[in-house]
């Protein structure tokens, strides 16, 4: 059979951001993939070296939109560790609240896109309407629907009163039953099963080989979640099970995300129930000594890792981060191998790629 090379861009693949692909096909089957990155490379790691620690919080929150809270919170964690700062317990819980709200919104967005690609437009609308509850909650609590501006060095920048906490609890209550139903739909609905089951498989061995992270790894049976393996913030006091599936296909990835969205509701509730009184940030910020440090968090797409090197000034010598989409891109070639060309958009979106994060 003759081999053909086709180039696919973001519009063909229904992506929200630009990434291009050179796809080798035999007949209508994919036999090779090259990812062409760099369309939105902004030199952001270089830019962070021109800004002081405070300014970098603002810059990093604009790295991407769906996981925007994970970047400043992980950066602040790195700085605090290096400076020997222990943030107030109330701030730890409030950081977890912000992270989990973003996780629900991010996961629902991806599940909506999956529904859209398989032609389930009514389901797409239902998922986006459900997500709107989360968006409204963010707007009410933080004043913004995407970039929450919740973090500062030494704590957080928001302090919800009893009214705000009651409002948030009511919003969470509105999510519970629809999230259960949504999980059942993705698990059992015949049309969705037919479109997603056994599609775009990444085996556990391949997942280990490529070092994939987050829901892509957990869908392949890898029991790894930074919140459990390297606890940070309030997570060592919160109860949850790591969501695991074994099939490694598009369906398993969607089910992991929906299970995590349900868990996130519970995690926020636990935070609000356990929320201690006290300050939300440290009153002062000590000088950051020269040194190097690692900080990690479980962003919606998986392990986010930051490396910070300092020289005693208020500018970083090096600030490097590796986003979860980064290793997941490389494994895409394995997921697509042998699949019909028509399934490429669904499989690409099933890794929930963040191109803005990847290119930086």
């Amino acid at each position: 059979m003759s081999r053909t090379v086709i180039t696919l861009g973001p519009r063909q693949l229904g992506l929200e951001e630009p990434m291009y692909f050179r796809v080798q096909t035999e007949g209508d089957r994919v036999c090779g993939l090259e990812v062409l990155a760099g369309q939105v490379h902004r030199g952001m790691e270089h830019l962070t070296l021109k800004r002081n620690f405070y300014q970098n919080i603002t810059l990093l929150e604009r790295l991407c939109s769906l996981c925007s809270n994970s970047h400043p919170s992980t950066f602040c964690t790195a700085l605090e560790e290096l400076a020997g700062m222990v943030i107030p317990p109330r701030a730890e819980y409030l950081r977890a609240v912000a992270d989990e709200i973003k996780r629900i919104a991010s996961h629902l967005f991806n599940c909506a896109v999956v529904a859209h690609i398989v032609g389930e437009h009514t389901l797409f609308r239902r998922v986006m309407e459900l997500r709107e509850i989360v968006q409204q909650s963010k707007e009410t609590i933080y004043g913004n629907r995407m970039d929450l501006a919740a973090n500062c060095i030494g704590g957080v920048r928001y302090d919800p009163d009893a009214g705000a906490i009651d409002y948030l609890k009511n919003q969470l209550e509105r999510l519970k039953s629809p999230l259960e139903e949504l999980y059942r739909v993705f698990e059992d609905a015949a049309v969705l099963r037919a479109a997603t089951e056994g599609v775009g498989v990444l085996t556990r061995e391949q997942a280990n080989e490529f070092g994939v992270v987050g829901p892509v790894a957990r869908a392949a049976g890898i029991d790894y979640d930074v919140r459990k393996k390297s606890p940070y913030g309030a997570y060592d006091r919160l109860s949850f099970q790591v969501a695991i599936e074994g099939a490694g296909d598009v369906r398993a990835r969607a089910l992991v995300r929906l299970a995590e969205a349900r868990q996130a509701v519970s995690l926020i509730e636990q935070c609000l129930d356990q929320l201690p009184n006290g300050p939300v940030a440290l009153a002062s910020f000590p000088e950051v000594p020269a040194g190097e440090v690692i900080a990690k968090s479980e962003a919606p797409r998986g392990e986010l890792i930051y490396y910070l090197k300092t020289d005693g000034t208020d500018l970083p010598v090096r600030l490097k981060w590796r986003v979860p989409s980064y290793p997941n891109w490389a494994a895409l070639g394995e997921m697509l191998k042998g699949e019909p060309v028509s399934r490429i958009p669904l499989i690409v979106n099933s890794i929930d790629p963040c191109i803005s994060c990847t290119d930086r």
Partner: protein
Amino acid sequence: MHEVEARVELVLAGALGARQVVAWRRDVKGVASGWCRLGEPEQVLPAARALAGLGARLSMVSASLVPAAPNATGREVAYHFDLDGTTLTLTLELPLQGARVPSLTPVYRNADWQEREFRELYDIEVLGHPNPGRLFVDRSLEPALFERLIPYSTFINGASGEKLWRQVQAAQQENPS
């Protein structure tokens, strides 16, 4: 010493033929990180193979200038490995010019992009990389462009604008039309 830390030091000593000094730290939650500087760039490949044998995952690779630009006299590459929640960082010290490291991609497939990225942004040659094409930056540009070119933000900032305006004024006074 905890079990993971002891096993890491054992396999590194076995792979490199001598005991390596790993500085272990624990954060406020008790999560461990280990920091080790390797003597020679070539040592990172056997070290990576030994860590792969322990089930370590290559989590990230960070290249940097030392000290900070524009006073840099050398380069460093830090390889961050994950061992079930514990992070081990192996750092290589490299010269500013002619820096070379062996590729870890034959051991860790996810090293592929990391190595291509620091190759083009930090001008560090990666020996034995199976797919050494450009990743982010157009192939027409020389490596390490951020070390040589003026960023747009600097080009358009207020200080440059005022300086440029003074030069224009001075030129006009010297050569009135």
